[in-house]
């Protein structure tokens, strides 16, 4: 075997050994195509709604047929961003449009339930932004509504559709060996306050800061990161402990801008979560520590850090590495088997599209092709509820038991 062909063989084997072939699709810069064209309606066109419009417009087979919001200024801005769409203020008008089989719900979290239940009753497929709801009762109601239908209900926990996180999923089992601990980190210096032109809309726009309806940092943001742990672990924590407070944004708010949460599993392992709106250092990531190494995931990138006494795989010789002070990480590359075969392994570092793009594409493939739902309503409800209960632990300062009825 020549040197070149041996390298190619080993690089190819790298993918196979790492379980990369389990990935369901090719990571490509080319846009994802659907089996057939589809029209969708978007309910809620605030900040997240805008991001959704941007990503939907990268899917050539998708037409945004309608946009909906109770704010006329947001609605007119959304229609400008999605030309050709119908703009309506009442979500029921979207559900009345016979040519729109699927709706994307990006309204404030506490308003999801009514819209989702009505959409399912109207026979519409639903992508519901995560967390699914702001109360345990509403989460369970959404899961129940989805369970009684053959319609698609996709919960918007994007990690489940993220090729980097899919790539890491089997590695957590095979490479880390015994899980010692897990963690999530969200540091972003921002007010979390949304200015409005109309003072009467101030409270509506700032529902995240309204303790009556907000599930706080750990509910709104942390549930996405907790979902990764629940997905990888395939079981639930039993207890949540938390602390938090307003450390920086002393503008009259009572919803903590800084929280620390511990979720504990029956086997003694825990997921430690830190989130703050007062500091940006470190950004957003999740980390899984095992006796053979650690995996760090940060939205579009992922790394494997191996212990020196962990078995070395042949493919690691050709893996792409990155130095982090005293640690060296192996960059996790989605769809590496195919890229390695083409000698383009480094092209796979990072994702060509934002995670939201893959989540929306997964939803629409489920709608048009019948592919399995990447994040079901029941999975989404579980992660949402854990976030809600963790927020209760933060607010109460005491341990909260986690028990979710099937």
């Amino acid at each position, binding site marked *: 075997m020549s040197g070149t062909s041996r390298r190619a063989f080993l690089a190819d084997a790298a993918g196979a050994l790492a379980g990369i072939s389990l990935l369901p699709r090719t990571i490509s*810069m*080319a*846009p994802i195509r659907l089996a057939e064209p589809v029209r969708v309606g978007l309910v809620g066109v605030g*900040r997240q709604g*805008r991001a959704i*419009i*941007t990503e939907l*417009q*990268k899917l*050539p087979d998708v*037409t945004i047929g309608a946009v909906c919001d109770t704010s006329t200024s947001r609605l007119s801005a959304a229609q*400008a*961003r*999605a*030309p*050709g769409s119908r703009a309506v203020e009442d979500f029921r008008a979207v559900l009345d449009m016979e040519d729109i089989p699927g709706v994307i719900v990006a309204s404030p979290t506490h308003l999801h339930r009514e819209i989702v239940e009505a959409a399912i009753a109207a026979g519409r497929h639903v992508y519901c932004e995560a967390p699914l709801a702001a109360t345990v009762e509403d989460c369970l109601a959404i899961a129940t509504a989805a369970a009684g239908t053959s319609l698609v209900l996709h919960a918007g926990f994007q990690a489940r559709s993220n090729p980097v996180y899919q790539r890491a999923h089997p590695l957590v089992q095979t490479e880390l060996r015994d899980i010692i601990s897990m963690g999530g980190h969200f540091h972003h210096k*921002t*007010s979390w*306050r*949304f*200015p409005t*032109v109309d003072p009467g809309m101030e409270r509506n726009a700032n529902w995240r800061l309204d303790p009556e309806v907000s599930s706080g940092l750990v509910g709104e943001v942390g549930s996405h990161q907790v979902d990764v742990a629940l997905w990888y672990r395939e079981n639930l924590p039993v207890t949540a402990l938390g602390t938090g407070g307003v450390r920086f*944004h002393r*503008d009259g708010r009572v919803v903590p801008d800084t929280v620390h949460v511990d979720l504990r599993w029956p086997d003694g392992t825990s997921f430690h979560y830190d989130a703050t709106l007062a500091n940006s250092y470190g950004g957003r990531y999740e980390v899984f520590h095992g006796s053979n190494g650690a995996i760090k995931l940060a939205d579009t990138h992922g790394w494997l850090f191996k212990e020196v006494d962990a078995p070395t795989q042949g493919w690691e010789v050709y893996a792409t590495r990155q130095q982090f002070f005293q640690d060296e990480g192996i960059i996790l590359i989605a769809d590496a088997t195919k890229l390695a075969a083409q000698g383009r392994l480094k092209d796979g570092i990072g994702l*060509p*599209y*934002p995670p939201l*793009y893959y989540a929306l594409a997964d939803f629409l493939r489920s709608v048009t092709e019948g592919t399995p739902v990447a994040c079901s309503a029941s999975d989404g409800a579980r992660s949402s509820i854990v976030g809600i209960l963790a927020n209760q632990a933060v607010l109460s300062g005491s341990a909260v038991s986690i028990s979710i009825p099937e």
Partner: protein
Amino acid sequence: MGTRFELILADQADPGRLRSVGERAIEEIRWCHERFNRYSPSSFVSFLRHSKQGHRVPVDRDTFNLLRLARDICLASDGAFDPSGGRGMSDLDLDEDLSTVTSRRPGVVLDFGGIAKGFALDLAASVLREHGVESAFLHGGTSSAIGIGTPPGKAGWRVTLGGPRSNWSVLLMDEALSVSAAWEDNPNPTRDPRTRTIIPCPRRVAVVGPIATLADAWSTAALVHGERPSGLGSEWYVCFA
């Protein structure tokens, strides 16, 4: 856009509200960066490059407006400003009714480096104005700037072109400024998109007018022309320094 943007909000208002308005304005700048960054595989520019010949690409109204402005200035400047690098903006069909862009040839590569900073500043400034901000200064990489109103107790936002060869300065009041320059030892020298020849240097031009997007594009065109572009309206001030 590979540079630092800064916003100074000088209103006498609730600092918390000003911060949130500023964050909202920065979101617009970030959106522009993600949209028009030719090095990002998920940007609109990359998407257009990989779209099939003849495929109608739907775009939001802001992107459509930028494309139309870029095409119009390309024509008005006799090609001195050309995001297609001289390959022809005319290869793009813009359908206003459908808000689509269609490429007549595959692999169209657009570089909005000569206009995107100004566009981002205009979007950010519109957010500030929409939320009632009356006194602010915004700049991107110090080469594009907008002054909204005046600083407290001053006649305008004073901007000085530094460097050993100039101390030219201007007061901005509800105006935009863009500076383009060609300098020696630039590893990526500015070229005339029509001839691919390198612009004589050193050369520096400042353009002042009502809209940062246009100031940005016209300063590039003026740099290429080496004189005030004939297509530029009388409301614009041009200074070579």
